[in-house]
């Protein structure tokens, strides 16, 4: 684990409250696996005691090569105090970014078909996964289903605008871009049209809790293995604070499960989980 002080390569305003932050870190650029994240010190510098006090977790979206060296990009949306500060970072600023952290996605065996289902700022880790699949030994077989609220959220698609192996399907809640509907509806329609998911199908998903619930339901009902990446509030990213928990599936009724294992640390056991291992309905993982 490393916590380097890294240089900001760029911090591009993509519009609609979305930004793309490039950080110089050749090691992480090489070592991060899709689905892993970093804890960024958003309020660095000026003050002894930062405000907000805690770092913020962000998925590694993709590796980048720049004249200054290799690094990686984080795609984020401004939602509160931390991301507001982040949006003020400028080229040449330095921040601590701890990572790569957490359990990554497990890419499918060659021959399988992967379905990448993402919503909003849950899309970035799927870019990393698609990039990995694209670099794989055999021609990758995957399809991408993405959903956002409206055309204003188009910056979320960064990384999927370019052509991808099996095509990218876009849905918006209001129909202002692509077709109206959700990413999960699009996935299910596709499967229904094809008479069910293909053999060797696997789903990888990240997005808001409602979307994850829907995707897990769709997959579990059809016997499709499904990995989801959950976003909980994280204090440390290292398994030290026990703040980031998500409920284990059937936690209260499984006699084999130690009470200790009823709440799973999303930062080290996740953020990527087999959907069958977690209970997305138990208590809000986040306010």
């Amino acid at each position, binding site marked *: 684990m490393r916590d380097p002080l890294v240089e900001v390569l760029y911090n591009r305003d993509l519009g609609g409250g979305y930004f793309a932050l490039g950080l110089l870190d050749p090691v992480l650029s090489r070592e991060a696996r899709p689905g892993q994240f970093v804890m960024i010190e958003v309020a660095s510098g000026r003050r002894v005691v930062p405000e907000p006090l805690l770092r913020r977790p962000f998925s590694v979206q993709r590796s980048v090569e720049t004249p200054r060296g290799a690094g990686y990009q984080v795609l984020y949306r401004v939602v509160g105090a931390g991301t507001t500060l982040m949006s003020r970072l400028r080229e040449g600023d330095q921040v601590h970014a701890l990572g790569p952290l957490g359990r990554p996605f497990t890419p499918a065996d060659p021959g399988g078909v992967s379905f990448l289902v993402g919503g909003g700022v849950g899309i970035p880790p799927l870019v990393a996964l698609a990039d990995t699949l694209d670099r794989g030994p055999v021609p990758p077989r995957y399809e991408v289903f993405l959903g956002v609220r409206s055309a204003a959220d188009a910056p979320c698609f960064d990384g999927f605008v370019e052509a991808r192996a099996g095509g990218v399907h876009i849905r918006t809640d209001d129909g202002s871009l692509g077709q109206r509907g959700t990413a999960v509806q699009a996935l299910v329609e596709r499967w229904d049209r094809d008479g069910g998911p293909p053999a060797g199908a696997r789903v990888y998903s990240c997005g808001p809790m409602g979307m994850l619930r829907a995707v897990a339901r769709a997959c579990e009902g059809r016997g499709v293995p499904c990995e989801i990446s959950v976003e*909980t509030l994280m204090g*440390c990213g290292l398994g030290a*604070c026990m*703040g980031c928990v998500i409920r284990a599936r059937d936690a209260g009724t499984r006699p084999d499960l130690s009470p*200790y*294992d*009823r*709440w799973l640390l999303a930062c080290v056991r996740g953020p990527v989980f087999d959907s069958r291992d977690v209970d997305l309905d138990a208590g*809000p993982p986040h306010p």
Partner: protein
Amino acid sequence: MHPSPPSPVDLTVRIGPLTLANPVMLASGTAGYGPELSGVLDLSSLGGFVTKGIAREPWEGNSPPRLAETHAGLLNAIGLQNVGLDRFLAEKVPFLRELGTRVVVNVIGRTIEEYVEVSRALDSCDAVDALELNVSCPNIKHGGIQFGTGPEGASRVTAAVRAATRKPLWVKLSPNVGDIAEVARAVEGAGADGLSLINTLLGMAVDLDRRRPILANVHGGLSGPAIKPVALRMVWQCFRAVGIPIVGMGGIWTARDALEFMVCGARAVQVGTASFANPRAAAEVLDGMGQWCRDQGIPRIADIVGTLEA
């Protein structure tokens, strides 16, 4: 200004029978069971490591959200989720044995009997250098809190555990009391070898728009720089009230913070919340403390303990 002495500063401190290579430890509950921070921080460079609270049985902890940020502070309501004694001994102790620093086990219980059983089991564990009785966790409804809020309860559990172990016994007090010195004296009388001060202040945060508490547990424990003034006050009050050594904590962020605790009477310090914002915080605090001693021409850091002129 004194010229920097050529000889290195002696950073060792003694807490009763136990010598620490230096005064900086990681605080209970903020560094897991050891492996969690070891990738970013060389734990063997520190004076000690305090584990997450260990109970006789595994505990589930509270529902999330378990954390809420406040101005210069952090509220937590983890609820003492922990692996329990058996798994601690089987899975965590082997790593701790190789840590190369003092290992202190934070002990929790719902009853005095539970405290005693955990402590007795740890008594025979060579990897453990000291016990820290957490009689003060505010996050569980039927848990340790009742022992920590009064001198009687705190001294009863201390005395019972004292009889069950020969390990150095530190008692970690709750700051949510009217007179901390009274509790400190009671615990000293009951056989404690040291005091850990302070645990978190009971607090609360509100999600205004949803009209709900932010923490699922409603209340949580406040830590971080916000509580440092209260912690320093309690360390100083207890330093004047008891003879046993004090381990100070509460909002330590920098070397100067840590040194302030020592000047107020802490023999050693623990770094907690700061590790979340910066996982190397404890190492940086330690570096800064040595540097300050060199700059001030202080040959032994132990000499500054309790030197406040007040």
